[in-house]
């Protein structure tokens, strides 16, 4: 006689079991759940009341804000300023075109299997800055000139972060290759450059760019404040970029280098055709992460007097016409940054999983 077959173990799926397992598994956990739950419930309710239910959304003057909640009026009133800064109203279509092109080149990257999305991305990295160079400042093809002192808001934040990354990428590649070079002097120069820039805070770099750069340049050559900030950000960022890329170079198995040597490829062919394509693919998530931190760090330019999105909001808060909207303003900027950064970081994590082809040692 054989034993009767045993029934499969019960898999607990009911909500009651889930709650018991995840919230009340021991007296200690139960206590923790009750205390934390009480704190969450008592703080989330008033928070939502302030954000939505008691908030003022309609109206067009500061005096319309009578509720006890947030005053979102000033955001809708000043939205134009927060996005374009002092860019003239009738020329804002130029910035809109750039926003459109930016969305066009990068939104396909989030969609799996979008036809030709590689080319959209490539355009974003190469064509887009060129178009922007002609379109945003004007002065070509009969476009009216808009001085960089009038740029501001979200537009300026995106320009700083985007140019910072695009320009620092090639410099970073050169520095990373230099740091892995077999020539001691070239390696030394690159190490010193990278380590010095990485050791100093961005504020010192921005101060230096705005105060000392004019001293470094020969007479008659001068840059606008935005350009000086961009030079500082690019040099600083390229040191970080170099370290990210170096990580990729080190992760390439030795066999790849040796195989390239065995095929008789010279240094540039070996680097350009064998090593860099693999290394760069591997560090795309790292580059995206550097972009996120640069994107957050661009807020620092308000200290040297440029009006990025935080700068425009900060100047509105200190405007006597809109008093006591400080928290609303900060929540708005925080939300803008959060959407961008959280979205991009999720994308980068996704990419990391997809690109993990087992090369990492």
């Amino acid at each position, binding site marked *: 006689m054989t034993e009767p077959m045993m029934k499969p173990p019960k898999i607990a799926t009911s909500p009651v079991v889930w709650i018991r397992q*995840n*919230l009340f*598994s021991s007296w200690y*956990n139960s206590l*923790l*759940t009750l205390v*934390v*739950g009480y704190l*969450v419930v008592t703080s989330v309710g008033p928070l939502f009341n302030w954000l939505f239910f008691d908030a003022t959304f309609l109206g067009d003057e500061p005096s319309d804000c009578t509720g006890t909640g947030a005053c979102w009026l000033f955001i809708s009133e000043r939205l134009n300023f927060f996005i374009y800064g002092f860019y003239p109203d009738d020329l804002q279509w130029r910035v809109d075109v750039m926003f459109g092109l930016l969305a066009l080149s990068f939104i396909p990257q989030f969609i799996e299997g979008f036809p030709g999305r590689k080319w959209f991305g490539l355009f974003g990295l190469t064509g887009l800055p060129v178009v922007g160079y002609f379109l945003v400042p004007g002065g070509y093809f009969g476009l009216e000139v808009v001085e960089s002192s009038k740029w501001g808001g979200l537009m300026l934040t995106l320009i700083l972060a985007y140019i910072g990354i695009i320009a620092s990428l090639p410099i970073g590649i050169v520095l990373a290759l230099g740091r892995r070079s*077999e*020539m*001691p*002097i*070239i390696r030394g*120069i690159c190490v010193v450059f990278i380590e*010095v820039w*990485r*050791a*100093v*805070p*961005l*504020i*010192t770099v921005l*101060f*230096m760019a705005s*105060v*000392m750069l*004019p*001293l*470094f*340049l*020969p*007479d008659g050559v001068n840059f606008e404040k935005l350009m000086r900030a961009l030079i500082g950000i690019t040099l600083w960022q390229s040191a970080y970029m170099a370290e990210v890329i170096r990580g990729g170079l080190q992760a390439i198995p030795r066999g790849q280098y040796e195989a390239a040597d065995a095929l008789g490829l010279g240094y540039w062919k070996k680097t350009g055709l064998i090593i860099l394509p693999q290394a760069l693919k591997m560090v795309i998530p790292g580059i995206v992460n550097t972009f*996120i931190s640069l994107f*957050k*760090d661009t*807020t*620092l330019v*308000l*200290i040297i007097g440029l009006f990025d999105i*935080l700068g425009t909001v*900060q100047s509105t*808060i200190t405007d006597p016409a809109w008093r006591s909207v*400080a*928290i609303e303003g*900060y929540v708005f*900027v*925080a939300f803008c*940054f*959060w959407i961008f*950064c*959280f979205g991009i*970081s999720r994308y980068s994590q996704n990419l990391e999983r997809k690109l993990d082809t087992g090369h990492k040692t």
Partner: protein
Amino acid sequence: MTKQTVDSRPAGPKPWYDPRIRSIFFQFIAIALVFWGGWTLIDNTLSNMESRGISTGFGFLKETAGFGIIMSLVPYDSTMTYGRTFVVGLMNTLLVSAMGIVTATIIGFIVGVARLSSNWLVAKLALVYIEVIRNIPLLLQIFFWYFAVLGSLPSPRQSVEVGGSFFLNNRGLYLPEPITQEGFGLVWGAVLAAIVAVLGLRAWAKKRQLATGRIFPTFKVGVAILVIVPAVAYLAAGAPLEWDLPALKGFNFGGGITIIPELAALWIALSLYTASFIAEIVRSGILSVSKGQTEAAKALGIPNSLTLRLVVIPQAMRVIIPPLTSQYLNLAKNSSLATAIGYPDLVAVFMGTTLNQTGQAVEVVAITMAVYLTISLSISLFMNIYNRAAAIKER
């Protein structure tokens, strides 16, 4: 037979294909470029400074500064020199960095462990904290704490009061200041003696454990020694400590210790922001210890509390230390955001006011950058030493 004199080896490469010669050539060019670039910069700078009438040299450090600083750890007033403003700024930077590193580490470890909690609510709450805080710019968070939260506290006359000795208002947090009286040296001596005793106890307990396998409760006994010995000495010396209480004088408080709102805002923001990164580092560190290690410890009969301390944490630390170091470095560098809210750190005082007053940009920027370079290098050196101690001992 005649000896062949023909060399059968192929001829060496032409000089311009010889890797050694090429490498010397390229390095020579690199040096030449660096020198040429450096020379051009120096030449431009010198001629620019001359045409603008900016003096050079470090003599300005001995001139009178003539401006006040709202907070300083060393005695300072406006009659002192620019060199003194450098010291004040440096001390303030070091103070806020050290405070931030301590609190960020504590919060970060708590949140990182909470993220792995078996309690669903706690784990999700930690996740929300991490994802919200680390995706918002630090400068914005500093502004939020400074202008929106601390700025809306009541004025000194309506301050929040705890027991008549702690006061909180929009000018800062006021705490009683301990003032040591005669005979307090005995207490310091007792503290020193207790530390020596605990170190000795630890060495003895370890030796005994290695010899006999019996575990001595070093931690509990050590804490008891550290508390009881100084307390006994304190009472024996006749409680030689008095408290200087803050009190409302005119429009503001006097006496006691003041934590100015600039420091508080910077401290809170730096701690919370860096903690969100540390939490993720701690989480990945703990996850990196494979389950087999805990199971093996259980199989050996090691109790749960010791498993965590002796098996999991030492292995997790190896993964945690290197990224933790770079977070500490980031925190020290981020403390320079103090400029934006007027906390008198090195950048605000020295690179801000002193630079503006003297105009000697090159010297001031060079000194400031040298300081940050030193701070960065010493933190990484210190952490490298610790890392070497924690690394895998391979034979």
